[in-house]
């Protein structure tokens, strides 16, 4: 908010400045920080760096990303090596060297959780990005253009909406099974099924923004279609998309788990949090820890992204700064 109370300036009727004189006035010497022209994104970044919630989420996400790409930094045990699992010690509680205990196969839960981060995070983040970009751009286009473009794209999304998600994902993953796409098949299947939601949210937000006077004012100035889309509509329609995207991220990681459980998606001996949770839940009452640890990591990941999404959304709204 502004630091000074807003007072309506007295109309300067008596002033007889012509335009030339205005030009001639020397600029005030002291312009503390206002001399730098600000922009929405610049101000948002400036603001974000001061938000503890953003810093915390950024650190968490950084740790998780490092964990997914260089898991050996965090764990000396390689869970892919056969020697590290001993069936005899299955479901053993925490012990020195095996802080999180062992799972049903006698493998170290800590190492598997660390090594499982990569698949889970890659699936969650890429699917979120793809759905947000594809659904967001199509929604922006449909909402801005309206008419035939809107009708056609909306009908297409309704077709995708009609597909039951798990069944659809099963179908897609089963169809492309032979292509050996690894985890990317899960990303593709989830993206295909999830983008219509982002599309609809973006489209609705754009339609709300489109009817506002500032868009008409921009058109009256002769602004191009793309300027109206990206300077006026997108910044005003982005907030709900960011919220839904970050919430969906957790959903995608969970959906990957469901697919793994059904036998498509990530398969043993590959590791993912979803797979670990699915494996551990049969014996949850006997040995809760093999389920609890990946679930906690999953929750922290989702929380970090939701916190970041929240912070970004707030920073992009000048009224909330």
């Amino acid at each position, binding site marked *: 908010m502004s630091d000074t109370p807003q007072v309506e*300036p007295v*109309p300067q009727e008596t002033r007889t400045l012509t335009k030339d004189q205005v030009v001639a*006035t020397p600029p005030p010497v002291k312009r503390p920080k*206002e001399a730098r022209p600000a922009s929405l994104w610049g101000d948002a970044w400036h603001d974000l760096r001061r938000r503890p919630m953003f810093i915390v989420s950024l650190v968490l996400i950084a740790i998780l990303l490092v964990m997914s790409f260089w898991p050996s930094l965090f764990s000396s045990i390689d869970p892919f090596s056969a020697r590290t699992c001993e069936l005899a010690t299955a479901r053993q509680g925490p012990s020195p060297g095996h802080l999180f205990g062992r799972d049903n196969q006698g493998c170290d839960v800590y190492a598997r959780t660390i090594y499982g981060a990569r698949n889970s995070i890659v699936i969650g983040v890429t699917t979120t990005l793809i759905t947000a970009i594809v659904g967001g751009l199509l929604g922006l286009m449909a909402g801005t253009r309206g008419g035939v473009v809107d009708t056609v794209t909306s009908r297409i999304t309704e077709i995708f909406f009609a597909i039951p998600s798990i069944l659809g994902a099963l179908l897609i993953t089963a169809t492309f099974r032979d292509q050996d796409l690894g985890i990317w098949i899960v990303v593709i299947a989830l993206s295909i099924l999830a983008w219509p939601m982002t599309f609809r949210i973006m489209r609705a937000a754009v339609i709300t923004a489109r009817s506002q*006077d500032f868009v*008409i004012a921009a058109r009256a100035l002769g*602004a191009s279609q793309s300027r109206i889309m990206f300077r006026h509509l997108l*910044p005003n329609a982005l907030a709900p998309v960011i919220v839904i995207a970050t919430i969906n991220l957790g959903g995608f990681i969970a959906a990957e788990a469901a697919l793994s459980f059904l036998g498509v998606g990530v398969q043993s001996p590959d590791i993912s949090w979803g797979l670990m949770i699915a494996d551990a839940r049969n014996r949850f009452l006997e040995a809760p820890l093999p389920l609890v640890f990946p679930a906690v990591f999953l929750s922290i990941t989702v929380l970090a992204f939701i916190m970041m999404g929240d912070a970004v959304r707030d920073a992009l709204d000048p009224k909330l700064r």
Partner: protein
Amino acid sequence: MATTGERILEVRDLVKHFPLTQGIVMKRQIGAIKAVDGVSFDLDRGETLGIVGESGCGKSTLAKVLMALERPTSGSVMINGRDIAKAKGGELKRMRRNIQMVMQDPYTSLNPRMTVGDIVGEPYDIHTEVAPKGDRLRKVQELLEVVGLNPDHINRYPHQFSGGQRQRIGIARGLALQPEIIVCDEPVSALDVSIQAQVINLLERLQNEFNLAYIFIAHDLSVVRHISDRVAVMYLGKVVELGKDIEIYDKPAHPYTQALLSAVPVPDPEGREQRERIILQGDPPSPANPPSGCRFRTRCWKAQEICATEEPLLQIRTGTQHESACHFAETHDVVHVG
């Protein structure tokens, strides 16, 4: 507000019908909302034409057509001899530099996610030929100063300003391209009365400074009287009376104008006793299906048979000095005060 007599805007037989369609796939037109139905007027450089009328009479549609935000069904809008209603692409964009707009609601007419500097500077981003890049910041600050805002506030956002200040930002944006014509669509009706006066005075000062011509649309008759050189009264998409402000206010000839004027609040208790109240019966008819002949006849106390059969044209009638569209036009001072 001296006019030089140089004509910069000529509106001829402007018609805007919005089609009413039925059916979803096989759309067929079952009628049309006749929002603007044959409006003609001229505007000179430095002149202010007030346009008054009740809600739904087509004032705002007229503004949109003038701004080329809507294509007219027929008719022409000649700005300096060129028809903006038929201009396209680059030519339309160039013509827009000459006609700009101040909008009604200062709360929705400014993008809440743009800084004031970006809002006022946007015209220069769109019309890059107007100001070289290094010059823009200075120009924006000048504009803010011209409209009475602190030029250091370029990095603030619209919500940090009051309604009156926001309207000044909107005015600065309208001035940026140095247009000759500014269409003000109810520029003060969303503001407090005290702020209204400031904004009106600002508009008048800017008019003198830059020799602007205004189309001033409002439903507040006293505001229009204050700022206008000439006034056009609209009813159901047509201009029913057009004349100098003194003529319209002191010698209204059309019964509708007389009824409108009789509803203006009079601050003087003495005058309040004197003036007569003309209370119109019923609501304005639907613009989709306006009455035959004179559109006002359904609510007019003077209506006779000719009003239903023959449409009165906007012309100077016997006993009056300005144009009115009534078969029985006669001047009649409703307000009886100075």
